[in-house]
């Protein structure tokens, strides 16, 4: 009897000891990794310590109070409207492209698993992977400054963002209805219109509205690279160190985002 309990105790103690050693080694490795990355990234640690004073000074002296009268100037107001317009147009065109892609990229109902599925998946994955701002810079180089390039960047972003969500919602549908309709001899289009869309429609509408909200968020920044919208004035004001007016634009951006979130929340609640 005692031998068994002794053995149990000993193996327990061994386990504890082993876990302790593993924990110690992992902690050590983590600390080593921390030091190495500080070294690798050339992070000035001494600057970090004095950061809070400077950040506090920056916020209290330079950023506040925001000079809201700057936003009331005609050109800035125009750029704010342009931002909203860009987001609506980009999200709409992007959604129109995404609708068939989401159908192709859903494994369970895709019309062609050999060709269209990998193609649509590939497009969605690659558009998701590219950072919007870089894509916008490339588009500006091709199409010139202005909201057109920004709109195309938002179209790309919509395909990656809404495409994935929509395809996932198609993949989670109830397949019994699809089978029932297929049993009557329906083709792929019949299945799409009578089995898939009725099941995912409410979900898709929600995704479309959420996507617009996300695109408005993105479009506020696109102007940074000259792709239209209010980001241009933000960059301009910061580069000439006019922090009070820059802060006014940031306040407008945050206001727009909160507004769009409220609108999208309200619309989604009403439509469900």
């Amino acid at each position, binding site marked *: 009897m005692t031998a068994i309990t002794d053995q149990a105790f000993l193996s327990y103690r061994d386990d504890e000891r082993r876990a302790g050693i593993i924990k110690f080694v992992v902690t050590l490795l983590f600390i080593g990794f921390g030091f190495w*990355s500080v070294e*690798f*990234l*050339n*992070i*000035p640690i001494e*600057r*970090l310590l004095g*950061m809070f004073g*400077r*950040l506090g*000074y*920056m*916020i209290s002296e*330079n*950023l506040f109070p925001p000079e809201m009268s700057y936003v009331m100037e005609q050109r800035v107001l125009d750029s704010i409207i*342009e931002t909203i*317009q*860009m987001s*609506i*147009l980009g999200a*709409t065109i992007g959604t129109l492209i995404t609708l068939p892609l989401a159908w192709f990229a859903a494994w369970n109902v895709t019309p062609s698993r050999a060709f269209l599925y990998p193609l649509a998946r590939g497009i969605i*994955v*690659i558009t*998701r*992977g*590219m*950072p*919007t*701002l*870089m*894509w916008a*810079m*490339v588009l500006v*180089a*091709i*199409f*010139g*400054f*202005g*909201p*057109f390039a920004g*709109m195309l960047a938002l179209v790309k972003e919509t395909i990656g963002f809404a495409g994935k969500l929509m395809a996932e919602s198609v993949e989670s549908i109830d397949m019994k209805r699809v089978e029932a309709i297929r049993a009557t001899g329906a083709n792929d289009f019949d299945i799409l219109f009578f089995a898939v869309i009725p099941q995912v429609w409410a979900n898709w509408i929600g995704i479309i509205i959420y996507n617009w909200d996300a695109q408005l*968020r993105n479009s*506020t*920044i696109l102007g*940074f*690279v000259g792709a*239209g919208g209010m980001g241009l004035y*933000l960059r301009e004001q*910061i580069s000439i160190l006019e*922090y009070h007016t*820059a802060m006014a634009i*940031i306040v407008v*951006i*945050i206001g727009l*985002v*909160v507004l769009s*979130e409220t609108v999208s929340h309200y619309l989604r609640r009403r439509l469900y």
Partner: protein
Amino acid sequence: MTDMVVTGNPLRDPKKIARKYFAVALFAVLVIYIADTIIIEGTDWERMGSLEEVVKTMLFFLPDFSFFPQTVVPLLETVLIAFWGTALAVVFSMPIAYLAARNITPLPWLTYPLGRCMIVLSRSTHEIIFALIYISALGLGPLPGILALASRSLGFMAKTTSEAIENVKKGPIEAMEAVGANRTTIFFFGVMPQIFPIFVGNAIFQLDINIRRASILGLVGGGGIGLMFAEVMQNLQYDRAGMIVVGITAMVVFGEFVSNRVRQRLV
């Protein structure tokens, strides 16, 4: 009984259908108007030139793969910035989640709105804006980039964690209360074990997203691959820019793949 007969399908109420079509028509008119202002009036088609010229410019972006070795170090830097940004966000999201969870917040009338406000502010501000503020206070380099990513991720982490805390099972907590545990003990031994898997899953998800965010921070001076991208774009070395875009896309797609795999294992 006769007065309970339903007259007509309520889903096919003509008034509702008319309203729906009116809304759709209104939206269509709005989109056409915007398309007119942006695509036709707001674009300088003269400067863009013919279709041939546009295609020619596009071909400049064909990636120059011999440039790849020079992008490895900035790409690694980007991943490290994303990692440390996420790590900071994970650490600092805990106290905010503690404030913003309705069931454990210490002073519901004060700390709950405070925590929520911080979450909304962090979630609705673009990482570039955070980066600009930190850069103006700290100077250029990866450090403001890390802080910007941390500030941006903080909101998401705190939001999901506080929601997880709000949905914990009451059983273990009541059992601990019954044996006389105090609030801190309940938090660490009653709440934490329940939210831990969700928390780790979200942290990995944020790491994956932060890699994407970190790659553009360099455009405003936040370190990483974006800096190199801005440089080659300014020098009009479009083939190198194409290479960088391909490199980032590959890295992000790979990161997403790994993070999906790991999260599937966890759940």
